[in-house]
Protein backbone atom coordinates (compact mmCIF):
# COMPACT_ATOMS: atom_id res chain seq x y z
CA UNK A 1 0.00 0.00 0.00
CA UNK A 2 2.65 2.47 1.03
CA UNK A 3 4.89 1.51 -1.88
CA UNK A 4 2.04 1.81 -4.33
CA UNK A 5 1.18 5.33 -3.18
CA UNK A 6 4.85 6.30 -3.36
CA UNK A 7 5.00 5.11 -6.95
CA UNK A 8 1.87 7.11 -7.79
CA UNK A 9 3.39 10.19 -6.14
CA UNK A 10 6.54 9.77 -8.24
CA UNK A 11 4.44 9.43 -11.39
CA UNK A 12 2.67 12.69 -10.54
CA UNK A 13 6.08 14.29 -10.09
CA UNK A 14 7.10 13.03 -13.55
CA UNK A 15 3.98 14.49 -15.11
CA UNK A 16 4.57 17.83 -13.36
CA UNK A 17 8.09 17.76 -14.83
CA UNK A 18 6.55 17.23 -18.27
CA UNK A 19 4.40 20.35 -17.74
CA UNK A 20 7.40 22.49 -16.77
CA UNK A 21 9.65 21.25 -19.58
CA UNK A 22 6.73 21.47 -22.00
CA UNK A 23 6.21 25.13 -21.16
CA UNK A 24 9.94 25.69 -21.44
CA UNK A 25 10.00 24.19 -24.95
CA UNK A 26 7.34 26.72 -25.94
CA UNK A 27 10.01 29.41 -25.83
CA UNK A 28 10.75 28.99 -29.53
CA UNK A 29 8.53 28.20 -32.52
CA UNK A 30 10.56 25.16 -33.70
CA UNK A 31 10.22 23.33 -30.37
CA UNK A 32 6.80 24.66 -29.35
CA UNK A 33 4.91 21.74 -30.82
CA UNK A 34 7.08 19.23 -28.93
CA UNK A 35 6.44 21.26 -25.80
CA UNK A 36 2.68 20.94 -26.14
CA UNK A 37 2.95 17.22 -26.93
CA UNK A 38 5.16 16.63 -23.89
CA UNK A 39 2.71 18.51 -21.72
CA UNK A 40 -0.15 16.41 -23.13
CA UNK A 41 1.87 13.27 -22.40
CA UNK A 42 2.32 14.45 -18.81
CA UNK A 43 -1.44 14.94 -18.60
CA UNK A 44 -2.14 11.45 -19.96
CA UNK A 45 0.28 9.97 -17.45
CA UNK A 46 -1.36 11.86 -14.58
CA UNK A 47 -4.82 10.69 -15.65
CA UNK A 48 -3.58 7.10 -16.00
CA UNK A 49 -1.94 7.19 -12.57
CA UNK A 50 -5.15 8.57 -11.05
CA UNK A 51 -7.21 5.76 -12.57
CA UNK A 52 -4.74 3.22 -11.19
CA UNK A 53 -4.89 4.88 -7.77
CA UNK A 54 -8.69 4.85 -7.71
CA UNK A 55 -8.84 1.21 -8.82
CA UNK A 56 -6.24 0.27 -6.20
CA UNK A 57 -8.03 2.08 -3.38
CA UNK A 58 -11.25 0.33 -4.29
CA UNK A 59 -13.49 2.89 -2.57
CA UNK A 60 -15.19 3.89 -5.81
CA UNK A 61 -18.66 2.49 -6.49
CA UNK A 62 -19.88 1.24 -9.87
CA UNK A 63 -21.98 4.39 -10.21
CA UNK A 64 -18.85 6.41 -9.47
CA UNK A 65 -16.99 4.69 -12.32
CA UNK A 66 -19.97 5.27 -14.57
CA UNK A 67 -20.15 9.01 -13.75
CA UNK A 68 -16.42 9.33 -14.28
CA UNK A 69 -16.41 7.45 -17.59
CA UNK A 70 -19.54 8.98 -19.11
CA UNK A 71 -18.67 12.48 -17.87
CA UNK A 72 -15.06 12.27 -19.00
CA UNK A 73 -15.94 10.92 -22.43
CA UNK A 74 -18.75 13.42 -22.93
CA UNK A 75 -16.61 16.40 -21.92
CA UNK A 76 -13.60 15.22 -23.94
CA UNK A 77 -15.74 14.62 -27.00
CA UNK A 78 -17.31 18.05 -26.74
CA UNK A 79 -13.92 19.70 -26.25
CA UNK A 80 -12.42 17.77 -29.17
CA UNK A 81 -15.32 18.70 -31.45
CA UNK A 82 -15.18 22.40 -30.56
CA UNK A 83 -11.39 22.57 -30.82
CA UNK A 84 -11.39 20.85 -34.21
CA UNK A 85 -14.22 22.80 -35.80
CA UNK A 86 -13.76 26.32 -34.45
CA UNK A 87 -12.59 28.94 -36.90
CA UNK A 88 -9.28 30.52 -35.99
CA UNK A 89 -10.95 33.91 -35.67
CA UNK A 90 -13.20 32.52 -32.91
CA UNK A 91 -10.30 30.91 -31.09
CA UNK A 92 -9.93 33.49 -28.26
CA UNK A 93 -13.50 32.92 -27.08
CA UNK A 94 -13.01 29.15 -27.22
CA UNK A 95 -9.94 29.43 -25.00
CA UNK A 96 -12.05 31.56 -22.67
CA UNK A 97 -14.77 28.90 -22.65
CA UNK A 98 -12.28 26.12 -21.85
CA UNK A 99 -10.95 28.34 -19.10
CA UNK A 100 -14.47 28.81 -17.74
CA UNK A 101 -15.14 25.07 -17.44
CA UNK A 102 -11.72 24.55 -15.86
CA UNK A 103 -12.58 27.09 -13.18
CA UNK A 104 -15.99 25.48 -12.75
CA UNK A 105 -14.46 22.03 -12.32
CA UNK A 106 -12.03 23.35 -9.69
CA UNK A 107 -14.91 24.92 -7.73
CA UNK A 108 -16.95 21.72 -7.95
CA UNK A 109 -14.07 19.64 -6.59
CA UNK A 110 -13.98 21.75 -3.43
CA UNK A 111 -17.78 21.79 -3.08
CA UNK A 112 -18.03 18.01 -3.48
CA UNK A 113 -15.23 17.39 -1.01
CA UNK A 114 -16.69 19.83 1.51
CA UNK A 115 -20.15 18.28 1.30
CA UNK A 116 -18.62 14.82 1.79
CA UNK A 117 -16.62 15.94 4.82
CA UNK A 118 -19.58 17.82 6.28
CA UNK A 119 -21.65 14.66 5.88
CA UNK A 120 -19.13 12.31 7.48
CA UNK A 121 -17.86 14.38 10.36
CA UNK A 122 -20.87 15.27 12.46
CA UNK A 123 -19.11 16.34 15.60
CA UNK A 124 -15.54 17.38 14.67
CA UNK A 125 -15.07 20.50 12.59
CA UNK A 126 -13.38 20.51 9.23
CA UNK A 127 -9.69 21.43 9.55
CA UNK A 128 -8.85 25.03 8.74
CA UNK A 129 -6.42 24.00 6.00
CA UNK A 130 -9.34 22.40 4.16
CA UNK A 131 -11.98 25.03 4.86
CA UNK A 132 -9.76 28.01 4.00
CA UNK A 133 -8.59 26.52 0.73
CA UNK A 134 -12.11 25.29 -0.10
CA UNK A 135 -13.53 28.78 0.24
CA UNK A 136 -10.68 30.26 -1.85
CA UNK A 137 -11.11 27.56 -4.49
CA UNK A 138 -14.89 28.07 -4.69
CA UNK A 139 -14.67 31.88 -4.85
CA UNK A 140 -11.90 32.01 -7.47
CA UNK A 141 -13.32 29.13 -9.49
CA UNK A 142 -16.85 30.54 -9.57
CA UNK A 143 -15.70 34.07 -10.48
CA UNK A 144 -13.65 32.54 -13.31
CA UNK A 145 -16.55 30.41 -14.54
CA UNK A 146 -19.07 33.23 -14.91
CA UNK A 147 -16.49 35.88 -15.82
CA UNK A 148 -14.98 33.78 -18.62
CA UNK A 149 -18.42 32.95 -20.02
CA UNK A 150 -19.25 36.67 -20.15
CA UNK A 151 -15.86 37.39 -21.77
CA UNK A 152 -16.46 34.69 -24.39
CA UNK A 153 -19.97 36.02 -24.97
CA UNK A 154 -18.60 39.52 -25.55
CA UNK A 155 -16.03 38.29 -28.07
CA UNK A 156 -18.62 36.15 -29.86
CA UNK A 157 -21.09 39.03 -29.92
CA UNK A 158 -23.80 37.40 -27.79
CA UNK A 159 -23.21 40.17 -25.30
CA UNK A 160 -22.48 43.70 -26.58
CA UNK A 161 -18.74 44.30 -26.45
CA UNK A 162 -19.23 47.87 -25.24
CA UNK A 163 -18.65 48.40 -21.56
CA UNK A 164 -21.97 47.70 -19.85
CA UNK A 165 -22.47 49.69 -16.71
CA UNK A 166 -24.28 47.60 -14.16
CA UNK A 167 -26.78 49.77 -12.26
CA UNK A 168 -25.32 50.43 -8.83
CA UNK A 169 -22.71 47.75 -9.58
CA UNK A 170 -20.42 49.05 -6.86
CA UNK A 171 -23.12 48.70 -4.24
CA UNK A 172 -24.08 45.22 -5.43
CA UNK A 173 -20.41 44.24 -5.36
CA UNK A 174 -20.00 45.64 -1.87
CA UNK A 175 -23.05 43.72 -0.62
CA UNK A 176 -21.79 40.52 -2.27
CA UNK A 177 -18.32 41.02 -0.82
CA UNK A 178 -19.78 41.50 2.65
CA UNK A 179 -21.90 38.36 2.18
CA UNK A 180 -18.79 36.46 1.10
CA UNK A 181 -16.88 37.62 4.17
CA UNK A 182 -19.76 36.71 6.46
CA UNK A 183 -20.10 33.27 4.88
CA UNK A 184 -16.37 32.67 5.05
CA UNK A 185 -16.28 33.73 8.68
CA UNK A 186 -19.17 31.38 9.48
CA UNK A 187 -17.39 28.43 7.84
CA UNK A 188 -14.05 29.23 9.46
CA UNK A 189 -15.74 29.48 12.85
CA UNK A 190 -16.19 25.74 12.51
CA UNK A 191 -19.67 25.41 11.06
CA UNK A 192 -19.71 22.49 8.63
CA UNK A 193 -22.35 24.26 6.58
CA UNK A 194 -22.37 23.14 2.97
CA UNK A 195 -25.33 25.45 2.29
CA UNK A 196 -23.11 28.41 3.23
CA UNK A 197 -20.41 27.21 0.82
CA UNK A 198 -22.95 26.98 -2.00
CA UNK A 199 -24.20 30.46 -1.09
CA UNK A 200 -20.62 31.68 -1.38
CA UNK A 201 -20.37 30.04 -4.81
CA UNK A 202 -23.55 31.78 -6.01
CA UNK A 203 -22.33 35.17 -4.73
CA UNK A 204 -18.99 34.63 -6.49
CA UNK A 205 -20.76 33.71 -9.75
CA UNK A 206 -22.67 37.02 -9.66
CA UNK A 207 -19.45 38.88 -8.86
CA UNK A 208 -17.77 37.35 -11.91
CA UNK A 209 -20.52 38.68 -14.18
CA UNK A 210 -20.45 42.13 -12.58
CA UNK A 211 -16.66 42.19 -12.85
CA UNK A 212 -16.48 41.50 -16.60
CA UNK A 213 -19.62 43.24 -17.93
CA UNK A 214 -18.28 46.82 -17.53
CA UNK A 215 -15.03 45.97 -19.36
CA UNK A 216 -14.84 46.85 -23.06
CA UNK A 217 -14.11 44.35 -25.84
CA UNK A 218 -10.61 45.71 -26.39
CA UNK A 219 -9.57 44.65 -22.93
CA UNK A 220 -10.94 41.12 -23.22
CA UNK A 221 -7.54 39.56 -23.99
CA UNK A 222 -6.15 40.96 -20.77
CA UNK A 223 -9.24 39.79 -18.89
CA UNK A 224 -9.09 36.27 -20.35
CA UNK A 225 -5.43 36.05 -19.44
CA UNK A 226 -6.20 37.26 -15.93
CA UNK A 227 -9.01 34.71 -15.55
CA UNK A 228 -6.64 32.03 -16.85
CA UNK A 229 -4.31 32.88 -13.98
CA UNK A 230 -7.32 32.74 -11.63
CA UNK A 231 -8.18 29.23 -12.76
CA UNK A 232 -4.60 28.12 -12.18
CA UNK A 233 -4.79 29.44 -8.64
CA UNK A 234 -8.19 27.80 -8.10
CA UNK A 235 -6.78 24.46 -9.28
CA UNK A 236 -3.84 24.83 -6.90
CA UNK A 237 -6.34 25.47 -4.07
CA UNK A 238 -8.25 22.35 -5.14
CA UNK A 239 -4.91 20.56 -4.81
CA UNK A 240 -4.70 21.70 -1.17
CA UNK A 241 -8.29 20.58 -0.55
CA UNK A 242 -7.89 17.04 -1.87
CA UNK A 243 -4.21 16.85 -0.93
CA UNK A 244 -2.86 16.40 -4.45
CA UNK A 245 0.65 17.73 -5.08
CA UNK A 246 0.15 17.39 -8.85
CA UNK A 247 -2.72 19.88 -8.82
CA UNK A 248 -0.76 22.28 -6.61
CA UNK A 249 2.25 22.31 -8.94
CA UNK A 250 0.30 22.57 -12.20
CA UNK A 251 -2.10 25.15 -10.78
CA UNK A 252 0.71 27.34 -9.46
CA UNK A 253 2.53 27.09 -12.80
CA UNK A 254 -0.54 28.34 -14.65
CA UNK A 255 -1.24 30.98 -12.03
CA UNK A 256 2.27 32.37 -12.53
CA UNK A 257 2.17 32.13 -16.34
CA UNK A 258 -1.22 33.80 -16.55
CA UNK A 259 -0.06 36.65 -14.32
CA UNK A 260 3.07 37.27 -16.40
CA UNK A 261 1.13 37.17 -19.63
CA UNK A 262 -1.53 39.49 -18.22
CA UNK A 263 1.10 42.00 -17.18
CA UNK A 264 2.84 41.84 -20.57
CA UNK A 265 -0.45 42.51 -22.35
CA UNK A 266 -1.45 45.34 -20.05
CA UNK A 267 2.02 46.90 -20.41
CA UNK A 268 1.79 46.79 -24.20
CA UNK A 269 -1.43 48.78 -23.99
CA UNK A 270 0.12 51.14 -21.46
CA UNK A 271 -2.53 50.32 -18.92
CA UNK A 272 -2.52 48.91 -15.45
CA UNK A 273 -4.40 45.73 -14.68
CA UNK A 274 -6.23 47.54 -11.92
CA UNK A 275 -7.31 50.22 -14.36
CA UNK A 276 -8.72 47.60 -16.75
CA UNK A 277 -10.60 45.71 -14.07
CA UNK A 278 -12.02 49.00 -12.79
CA UNK A 279 -13.39 49.41 -16.32
CA UNK A 280 -12.57 53.08 -16.89
CA UNK A 281 -11.14 53.02 -20.43
CA UNK A 282 -13.37 54.52 -23.11
CA UNK A 283 -16.48 54.09 -21.02
CA UNK A 284 -17.77 57.61 -20.81
CA UNK A 285 -16.34 59.67 -23.63
CA UNK A 286 -16.99 57.46 -26.67
CA UNK A 287 -20.43 58.80 -27.45
CA UNK A 288 -19.48 62.46 -27.16
CA UNK A 289 -16.66 62.43 -29.71
CA UNK A 290 -18.16 60.23 -32.41
CA UNK A 291 -19.74 63.17 -34.21
CA UNK A 292 -16.47 65.06 -34.45
CA UNK A 293 -14.63 62.14 -36.02
CA UNK A 294 -15.82 62.55 -39.60
CA UNK A 295 -15.17 66.28 -39.86
CA UNK A 296 -11.37 66.24 -40.19
CA UNK A 297 -9.84 66.57 -43.65
CA UNK A 298 -9.65 63.10 -45.06
CA UNK A 299 -8.58 61.93 -48.50
CA UNK A 300 -10.67 59.05 -49.76
CA UNK A 301 -9.21 56.70 -52.37
CA UNK A 302 -10.60 53.85 -54.49
CA UNK A 303 -9.40 50.31 -55.19
CA UNK A 304 -7.76 51.30 -58.49
CA UNK A 305 -5.62 54.04 -56.91
CA UNK A 306 -4.54 51.67 -54.18
CA UNK A 307 -3.71 48.91 -56.69
CA UNK A 308 -1.48 51.16 -58.78
CA UNK A 309 0.28 52.57 -55.76
CA UNK A 310 0.99 49.11 -54.36
CA UNK A 311 1.98 47.51 -57.66
CA UNK A 312 4.65 50.13 -58.39
CA UNK A 313 6.04 50.29 -54.87
CA UNK A 314 9.36 48.72 -53.89
CA UNK A 315 8.63 48.13 -50.27
CA UNK A 316 5.21 47.63 -48.72
CA UNK A 317 4.55 47.13 -45.02
CA UNK A 318 1.17 45.64 -44.12
CA UNK A 319 -0.25 46.60 -40.72
CA UNK A 320 -3.02 44.17 -39.74
CA UNK A 321 -5.44 44.84 -36.90
CA UNK A 322 -8.64 43.52 -35.43
CA UNK A 323 -10.61 44.56 -38.55
CA UNK A 324 -8.65 41.96 -40.52
CA UNK A 325 -9.56 39.24 -38.06
CA UNK A 326 -13.21 40.29 -37.88
CA UNK A 327 -13.55 40.23 -41.68
CA UNK A 328 -11.71 36.87 -42.03
CA UNK A 329 -9.42 38.67 -44.45
CA UNK A 330 -6.19 36.76 -43.72
CA UNK A 331 -6.42 34.77 -46.98
CA UNK A 332 -7.24 37.86 -49.03
CA UNK A 333 -4.22 39.71 -47.62
CA UNK A 334 -1.98 36.74 -48.40
CA UNK A 335 -3.28 36.69 -51.97
CA UNK A 336 -2.50 40.38 -52.38
CA UNK A 337 0.96 39.94 -50.86
CA UNK A 338 1.72 37.02 -53.21
CA UNK A 339 0.62 39.08 -56.18
CA UNK A 340 2.88 41.97 -55.14
CA UNK A 341 5.83 39.68 -54.45
CA UNK A 342 5.54 38.23 -57.94
CA UNK A 343 6.09 41.76 -59.19
CA UNK A 344 9.21 42.04 -57.04
CA UNK A 345 7.68 44.18 -54.28
CA UNK A 346 9.20 43.56 -50.86
CA UNK A 347 6.34 42.77 -48.49
CA UNK A 348 6.47 42.49 -44.71
CA UNK A 349 3.92 42.57 -41.91
CA UNK A 350 4.13 44.83 -38.86
CA UNK A 351 2.66 43.08 -35.84
CA UNK A 352 1.84 45.28 -32.88
CA UNK A 353 1.95 43.42 -29.56
CA UNK A 354 -1.76 43.98 -28.91
CA UNK A 355 -3.06 43.83 -32.47
CA UNK A 356 -6.16 41.66 -32.58
CA UNK A 357 -7.75 40.24 -29.49
CA UNK A 358 -4.91 38.31 -27.92
CA UNK A 359 -1.15 38.75 -28.01
CA UNK A 360 0.06 36.86 -31.05
CA UNK A 361 -3.47 36.67 -32.46
CA UNK A 362 -2.33 38.22 -35.75
CA UNK A 363 0.57 35.78 -36.01
CA UNK A 364 -1.77 32.83 -35.62
CA UNK A 365 -4.26 34.19 -38.14
CA UNK A 366 -1.61 35.01 -40.74
CA UNK A 367 0.08 31.67 -40.12
CA UNK A 368 -3.25 30.04 -40.89
CA UNK A 369 -3.14 31.70 -44.30
CA UNK A 370 0.43 30.39 -44.63
CA UNK A 371 2.14 33.76 -44.57
CA UNK A 372 5.87 32.99 -44.20
CA UNK A 373 6.99 33.35 -40.61
CA UNK A 374 9.99 35.48 -41.64
CA UNK A 375 7.71 38.19 -43.05
CA UNK A 376 6.05 38.79 -39.69
CA UNK A 377 8.00 41.53 -37.91
CA UNK A 378 7.61 42.68 -34.34
CA UNK A 379 7.17 46.34 -33.53
CA UNK A 380 10.84 46.76 -32.54
CA UNK A 381 12.03 45.14 -35.78
CA UNK A 382 9.75 47.00 -38.15
CA UNK A 383 9.66 50.55 -36.77
CA UNK A 384 13.08 51.54 -38.17
CA UNK A 385 11.94 50.25 -41.58
CA UNK A 386 8.88 52.49 -42.00
CA UNK A 387 10.83 55.50 -43.39
CA UNK A 388 12.07 53.24 -46.22
CA UNK A 389 8.58 51.91 -47.03
CA UNK A 390 6.84 53.29 -50.09
CA UNK A 391 3.43 52.26 -48.82
CA UNK A 392 2.17 51.30 -45.39
CA UNK A 393 -1.09 49.40 -45.83
CA UNK A 394 -3.12 49.58 -42.63
CA UNK A 395 -5.91 46.99 -42.53
CA UNK A 396 -8.40 47.37 -39.70
CA UNK A 397 -5.86 48.68 -37.20
CA UNK A 398 -6.52 51.96 -35.43
CA UNK A 399 -5.22 52.99 -32.01
CA UNK A 400 -1.89 51.19 -32.45
CA UNK A 401 -1.05 53.55 -35.34
CA UNK A 402 -2.19 56.83 -33.77
CA UNK A 403 0.68 59.35 -33.64
CA UNK A 404 -1.16 61.11 -30.81
CA UNK A 405 0.31 58.44 -28.53
CA UNK A 406 3.67 60.24 -28.70
CA UNK A 407 2.14 63.27 -26.97
CA UNK A 408 0.96 63.32 -23.38
CA UNK A 409 -2.57 64.15 -22.38
CA UNK A 410 -4.86 61.78 -24.26
CA UNK A 411 -6.29 58.27 -23.95
CA UNK A 412 -3.47 56.58 -25.91
CA UNK A 413 -0.57 58.65 -24.53
CA UNK A 414 2.54 56.62 -23.94
CA UNK A 415 1.22 53.52 -25.68
CA UNK A 416 3.95 52.11 -27.94
CA UNK A 417 2.81 52.55 -31.54
CA UNK A 418 3.88 51.47 -35.01
CA UNK A 419 5.55 54.38 -36.81
CA UNK A 420 3.18 54.10 -39.75
CA UNK A 421 3.14 57.89 -40.25
CA UNK A 422 6.86 57.78 -41.20
CA UNK A 423 6.17 55.77 -44.37
CA UNK A 424 6.27 57.66 -47.68
CA UNK A 425 2.57 57.08 -48.15
CA UNK A 426 -0.16 55.40 -46.18
CA UNK A 427 -3.31 53.56 -47.18
CA UNK A 428 -5.89 52.72 -44.56
CA UNK A 429 -8.58 50.12 -45.26
CA UNK A 430 -11.35 50.73 -42.79
CA UNK A 431 -15.09 50.50 -42.80
CA UNK A 432 -15.76 53.99 -41.47
CA UNK A 433 -14.18 56.85 -39.61
CA UNK A 434 -15.31 55.19 -36.36
CA UNK A 435 -13.04 55.23 -33.37
CA UNK A 436 -10.86 52.52 -31.98
CA UNK A 437 -11.33 51.29 -28.45
CA UNK A 438 -9.60 54.33 -27.02
CA UNK A 439 -12.49 56.42 -28.38
CA UNK A 440 -10.35 59.20 -29.87
CA UNK A 441 -9.62 60.44 -33.39
CA UNK A 442 -6.68 58.88 -35.17
CA UNK A 443 -4.51 61.75 -36.40
CA UNK A 444 -2.99 59.43 -38.98
CA UNK A 445 -6.20 59.68 -41.04
CA UNK A 446 -5.86 63.45 -41.40
CA UNK A 447 -2.24 63.19 -42.58
CA UNK A 448 -1.94 64.48 -46.19
CA UNK A 449 0.07 61.32 -47.02
CA UNK A 450 -2.83 59.11 -46.01
CA UNK A 451 -5.48 57.74 -48.37
CA UNK A 452 -8.57 56.23 -46.80
CA UNK A 453 -10.13 53.27 -48.58
CA UNK A 454 -13.52 52.78 -46.94
CA UNK A 455 -14.40 49.10 -47.18
CA UNK A 456 -14.74 45.90 -45.23
CA UNK A 457 -11.22 44.42 -44.99
CA UNK A 458 -12.06 41.29 -46.94
CA UNK A 459 -14.12 42.98 -49.68
CA UNK A 460 -11.60 45.82 -49.95
CA UNK A 461 -8.63 43.50 -50.34
CA UNK A 462 -10.45 41.40 -52.95
CA UNK A 463 -11.22 44.59 -54.90
CA UNK A 464 -7.55 45.62 -54.75
CA UNK A 465 -6.40 42.17 -55.88
CA UNK A 466 -8.82 42.30 -58.83
CA UNK A 467 -7.68 45.84 -59.69
CA UNK A 468 -3.99 44.85 -59.61
CA UNK A 469 -4.73 41.93 -61.94
CA UNK A 470 -6.65 43.99 -64.50
CA UNK A 471 -4.65 47.21 -64.38
CA UNK A 472 -1.15 45.87 -64.10
CA UNK A 473 -1.79 42.43 -65.53
CA UNK A 474 0.07 39.95 -63.43
CA UNK A 475 -0.40 36.47 -64.94
Amino acid at each position, binding site marked *: MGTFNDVIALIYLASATCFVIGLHLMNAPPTANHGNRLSALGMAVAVGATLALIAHDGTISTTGWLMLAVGGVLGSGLGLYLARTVEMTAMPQLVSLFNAVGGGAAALVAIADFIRLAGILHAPTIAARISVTSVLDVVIGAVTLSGSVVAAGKLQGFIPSEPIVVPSGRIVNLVLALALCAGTGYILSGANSDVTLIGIAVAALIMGVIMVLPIGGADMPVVISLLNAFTGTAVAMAGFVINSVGLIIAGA*LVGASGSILTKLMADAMNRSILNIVAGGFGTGDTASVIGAGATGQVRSVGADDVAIQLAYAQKVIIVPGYGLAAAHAQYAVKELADLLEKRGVEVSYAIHPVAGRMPGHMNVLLAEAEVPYQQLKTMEEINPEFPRADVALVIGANDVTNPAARRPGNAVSGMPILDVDKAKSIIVIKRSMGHGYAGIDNELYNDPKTGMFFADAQAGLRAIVAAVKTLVGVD
Partner: protein
Amino acid sequence: MDTSLITDVSIFVLSLLVGFEVISKVPQTLHTPLMSAANSIHGVVIVGAFLIASTAHDAVGYTLAFVAAVFAGMNVVGGYTVTDRMLKMFQRRPAAARSEATENGGKS
Protein backbone atom coordinates in the same frame (compact mmCIF):
# COMPACT_ATOMS: atom_id res chain seq x y z
CA MET B 1 0.48 23.53 11.75
CA ASP B 2 1.23 20.08 10.44
CA THR B 3 4.31 19.48 8.34
CA SER B 4 2.37 18.31 5.28
CA LEU B 5 0.70 21.71 5.02
CA ILE B 6 4.11 23.41 5.21
CA THR B 7 5.39 21.06 2.50
CA ASP B 8 2.37 21.80 0.29
CA VAL B 9 2.77 25.55 0.75
CA SER B 10 6.49 25.28 -0.08
CA ILE B 11 5.69 23.34 -3.24
CA PHE B 12 3.07 25.94 -4.17
CA VAL B 13 5.44 28.88 -3.76
CA LEU B 14 8.34 27.19 -5.57
CA SER B 15 6.02 26.20 -8.44
CA LEU B 16 4.92 29.82 -8.76
CA LEU B 17 8.56 30.87 -9.05
CA VAL B 18 9.25 28.18 -11.66
CA GLY B 19 6.21 29.41 -13.61
CA PHE B 20 7.43 33.02 -13.61
CA GLU B 21 10.90 31.95 -14.72
CA VAL B 22 9.87 29.52 -17.45
CA ILE B 23 7.28 31.80 -18.97
CA SER B 24 8.83 35.22 -18.93
CA LYS B 25 11.17 34.15 -21.76
CA VAL B 26 8.51 33.21 -24.33
CA PRO B 27 8.54 35.44 -27.45
CA GLN B 28 5.45 37.50 -28.17
CA THR B 29 4.60 35.46 -31.29
CA LEU B 30 3.86 32.47 -29.12
CA HIS B 31 1.80 34.24 -26.49
CA THR B 32 -1.58 33.05 -27.77
CA PRO B 33 -0.49 29.40 -28.05
CA LEU B 34 1.16 29.77 -24.66
CA MET B 35 -2.01 31.06 -23.05
CA SER B 36 -3.85 28.14 -24.59
CA ALA B 37 -1.17 25.69 -23.41
CA ALA B 38 -1.33 27.04 -19.86
CA ASN B 39 -5.09 26.79 -20.14
CA SER B 40 -4.85 23.09 -20.98
CA ILE B 41 -2.40 22.43 -18.15
CA HIS B 42 -4.89 23.61 -15.54
CA GLY B 43 -7.15 20.93 -16.99
CA VAL B 44 -5.18 18.68 -14.62
CA VAL B 45 -8.14 19.42 -12.35
CA ILE B 46 -9.57 16.32 -14.06
CA VAL B 47 -7.48 14.37 -11.55
CA GLY B 48 -9.46 16.12 -8.83
CA ALA B 49 -12.74 15.32 -10.59
CA PHE B 50 -11.74 11.63 -10.68
CA LEU B 51 -10.78 11.62 -7.02
CA ILE B 52 -14.11 13.11 -5.92
CA ALA B 53 -15.90 10.52 -8.07
CA SER B 54 -14.02 7.83 -6.15
CA THR B 55 -15.33 9.05 -2.80
CA ALA B 56 -18.88 9.88 -3.93
CA HIS B 57 -21.62 7.68 -2.53
CA ASP B 58 -24.85 9.63 -2.93
CA ALA B 59 -26.79 11.41 -5.65
CA VAL B 60 -25.32 14.84 -4.88
CA GLY B 61 -21.76 13.50 -4.92
CA TYR B 62 -22.34 11.63 -8.18
CA THR B 63 -23.88 14.66 -9.86
CA LEU B 64 -21.05 16.95 -8.79
CA ALA B 65 -18.45 14.40 -9.91
CA PHE B 66 -20.20 13.96 -13.24
CA VAL B 67 -20.37 17.69 -14.00
CA ALA B 68 -16.78 18.17 -12.84
CA ALA B 69 -15.65 15.32 -15.13
CA VAL B 70 -17.49 16.84 -18.12
CA PHE B 71 -15.99 20.29 -17.44
CA ALA B 72 -12.47 19.05 -16.83
CA GLY B 73 -12.53 16.65 -19.79
CA MET B 74 -13.56 19.53 -22.04
CA ASN B 75 -10.79 21.70 -20.64
CA VAL B 76 -8.07 19.09 -21.11
CA VAL B 77 -8.91 17.60 -24.49
CA GLY B 78 -10.18 20.81 -26.06
CA GLY B 79 -7.25 22.80 -24.68
CA TYR B 80 -4.55 20.51 -26.01
CA THR B 81 -6.26 20.06 -29.37
CA VAL B 82 -6.71 23.77 -30.02
CA THR B 83 -3.11 24.50 -28.92
CA ASP B 84 -1.87 21.78 -31.24
CA ARG B 85 -3.86 23.30 -34.10
CA MET B 86 -2.34 26.73 -33.47
CA LEU B 87 1.18 25.36 -33.28
CA LYS B 88 0.81 23.26 -36.42
CA MET B 89 0.29 26.48 -38.32
CA PHE B 90 3.75 27.60 -37.37
CA GLN B 91 5.24 24.22 -38.27
CA ARG B 92 3.47 23.10 -41.41
CA ARG B 93 4.56 25.92 -43.63
CA PRO B 94 7.92 24.72 -44.96
CA ALA B 95 6.35 21.42 -46.04
CA ALA B 96 3.35 23.13 -47.59
CA ALA B 97 5.51 25.63 -49.44
CA ARG B 98 7.64 22.83 -50.79
CA SER B 99 4.69 20.81 -52.05
CA GLU B 100 3.26 23.96 -53.64
CA ALA B 101 6.56 24.62 -55.35
CA THR B 102 6.76 21.10 -56.76
CA GLU B 103 3.16 21.35 -57.95
CA ASN B 104 3.90 24.56 -59.79
CA GLY B 105 7.08 23.07 -61.17
CA GLY B 106 5.12 20.12 -62.52
CA LYS B 107 2.63 22.37 -64.26
CA SER B 108 5.08 24.67 -66.00
